[in-house]
């Protein structure tokens, strides 16, 4: 009635449209939201770090003339047969079950051509992957689906999975749509059930038991294979120290940006720490024990570019692992499939309902009609190309910093763009000598 202007509609910063939509979804369905992938929230990350490059006091290496090596040894502490990789970018564990057989084959093909390793997952070892992956890491998970001594012996390394970044403290999940006959047989489960993997190992609890479990695996494999211990980014200082104490050759540390095939959204978004905050704590644990570089550190969770690789290594990692990025390289979430993503009520680059098994790209599915769309040879070539580009990018940065090996990158090569990243990464805020938290506890 009055001529006064209306107050314009104002959305709450607490009850945002997205939050309200989730409340309505929960009220209608009675079940929490389950999805794949890693955290989608904004976090301090490698993007918040920059390299300083060479200057008068440090001279650079010629980009196309002087060598910058990229190889890495893994498992030199106890294993008779440590692994030697040409590049420090490995493929993280992703299960057959979560991924199709052809997708696993493509990972093996691409990694082998690029000179790196792949890792099994919560579904056992497939011929597709063993046959195409020159260097294969076999995971020992709480579920022990498909676990057997023959696969332990034909693996090149063994990874005892304590946790993963997407869900430290959580077990696996594979919903009924993806429990095909073959997946059910490999896991010894009824077809079509919602499979919930245990969050704890069935035959050990705590660091003292883990030490004995690792001893058993070493004895079964005659001390030949490197044994990794994978931890989620929860308490990286103590977990790294305890993994070393338990006898690990390699510690794999996964931050909360690391993906999962299917987990509650609340778990993915609310539990764990970003990889930037995890790396310095793990490196400090290794240094405090005098084991830095002797027990190798592989970090993962949001590695996308050669710059991320270089930054992780400058912070003290020996190598990195990629999961989500590898799937994107294979063809996951490609905008050319937009029409099909629209049918699934989503859009390219946002599709995360991997647990439903309807992936138009044929990667995160067990539907033969969908996975036959995916060409493992082409997928492997795309992954190889991507890995090569990451390596070239990391070398470009390392040479600019005057380093003849990626391992020679160091924290002194880095600065942070904001206070949060400076504090987490333990490098100075750009333009200052200030590392928040230093000289006042870690």
């Amino acid at each position, binding site marked *: 009635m009055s001529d006064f202007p209306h107050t314009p509609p104002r959305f709450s910063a607490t009850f945002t449209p997205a939050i309200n939509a989730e409340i309505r979804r929960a009220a209608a369905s009675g079940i929490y939201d389950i999805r794949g992938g890693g955290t989608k929230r904004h976090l301090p990350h490698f993007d918040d770090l920059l390299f300083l490059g060479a200057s008068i006091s440090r001279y650079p290496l010629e980009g196309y003339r002087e060598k910058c090596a990229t190889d890495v040894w893994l498992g030199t502490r106890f294993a008779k047969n440590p692994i030697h990789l040409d590049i420090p970018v490995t493929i993280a564990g992703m299960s057959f079950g979560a991924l199709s057989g052809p997708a696993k084959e493509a990972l093996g093909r691409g990694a082998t051509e690029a000179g790196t390793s792949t890792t099994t997952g919560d579904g056992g070892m497939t011929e597709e992957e063993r046959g195409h992956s020159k260097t294969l890491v076999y995971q020992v998970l709480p579920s022990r689906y498909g676990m057997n001594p023959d696969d332990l012996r034909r693996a090149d390394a063994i990874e005892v999975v304590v946790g993963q970044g997407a869900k430290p403290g959580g077990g696996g999940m594979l919903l009924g749509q993806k429990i095909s006959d073959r997946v059910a047989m490999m896991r*010894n489960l009824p077809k079509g*059930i919602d499979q919930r993997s245990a969050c704890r190992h069935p035959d050990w609890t705590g660091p003292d038991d883990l030490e004995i479990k690792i001893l058993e695996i070493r004895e079964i494999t005659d001390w030949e294979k490197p044994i990794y211990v994978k931890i989620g980014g929860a308490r990286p200082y103590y977990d790294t120290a305890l993994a070393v104490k338990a006898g690990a050759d390699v510690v794999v540390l996964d931050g909360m940006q690391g993906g999962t095939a299917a987990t509650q959204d609340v778990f993915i978004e609310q539990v764990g720490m970003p990889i930037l905050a995890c790396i310095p704590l793990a490196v400090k644990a290794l240094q405090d024990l005098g084991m830095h570089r002797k027990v190798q550190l592989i970090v993962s969770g949001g590695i996308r570019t050669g710059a991320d690789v270089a930054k992780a290594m400058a912070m003290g990692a020996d190598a990195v692992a990629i999961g989500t990025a590898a799937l994107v390289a294979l063809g996951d979430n490609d905008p050319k499939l937009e029409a099909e993503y629209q049918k699934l009520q989503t859009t390219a680059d946002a599709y995360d309902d991997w647990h439903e098994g309807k992936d138009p790209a044929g990667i995160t599915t067990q539907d033969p009609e969908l996975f036959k769309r995916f060409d493992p040879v082409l997928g492997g070539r795309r992954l190889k190309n991507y890995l090569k580009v990451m390596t070239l990018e990391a070398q470009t940065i390392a040479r600019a910093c005057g380093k003849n090996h990626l391992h020679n990158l160091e924290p002194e090569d880095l600065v942070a763009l904001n206070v949060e990243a400076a504090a987490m990464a333990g490098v100075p805020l750009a333009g200052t000598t200030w590392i928040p938290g230093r000289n006042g506890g870690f």
Partner: protein
Amino acid sequence: MQTFDLAARGLRELNQTLHSLRGGQTNETVWEIVNTRGSHAIAVGVDAPLDITVRGTTGYYCAGMNKQASIRITGSAGPGVAENMMSGTVIVEGDASQYAGATGRGGLLVIKGNASSRCGISMKGIDIVVHGSIGHMSAFMAQSGSLVVLGDAGDALGDSLYEAKLYVRGKVKSLGADCIEKEMRPEHYEALEELLRRGEATGKAKPEEFRRYGSARKLYNFNIDNAAAY
């Protein structure tokens, strides 16, 4: 018979010696391991039709991942005896600690005494016969195979069970989520008789004295109305 003195020659040599017999082209098929002194990981990863007697008491994971071998432990066994066994037979004359037969995929585990908590956890095809009683949370998430208990079972038997079959002669303190008593049909009496025979328990118990427990299959697919069971 080959006698291996574990205290004198060490664990690594023991397991490597037994592994060297993989492929089966050997007449050294009967073994005795002495001076075990509670060592962990005794005779793990054996993959040959050997007849092994472990004299004394063992630590963790004795006979872990066994294939083909018959392994008899004359004393008691520590945690995880015969974990992830694939085939063959493991017999414990004494008691067994936690997680006996965990994730076992085949073969037969016999415990003449009692077994502690989590016996048969996540079992995937192994058969386990316990002459005494078992502790709490046994057969947790058990997927397949049979667990036979001549004595009593502790709390939360068969919690989140899949398709494993559980036979208990004595009292069950409580059943875990989704585990229910089921009818004993003729095929179950028949299977149980055979398990008792193979488990060296014939004459100690009769099939008709047992009750059978299995999955209600209500938690196989998520339903919000069952949330309180998790």
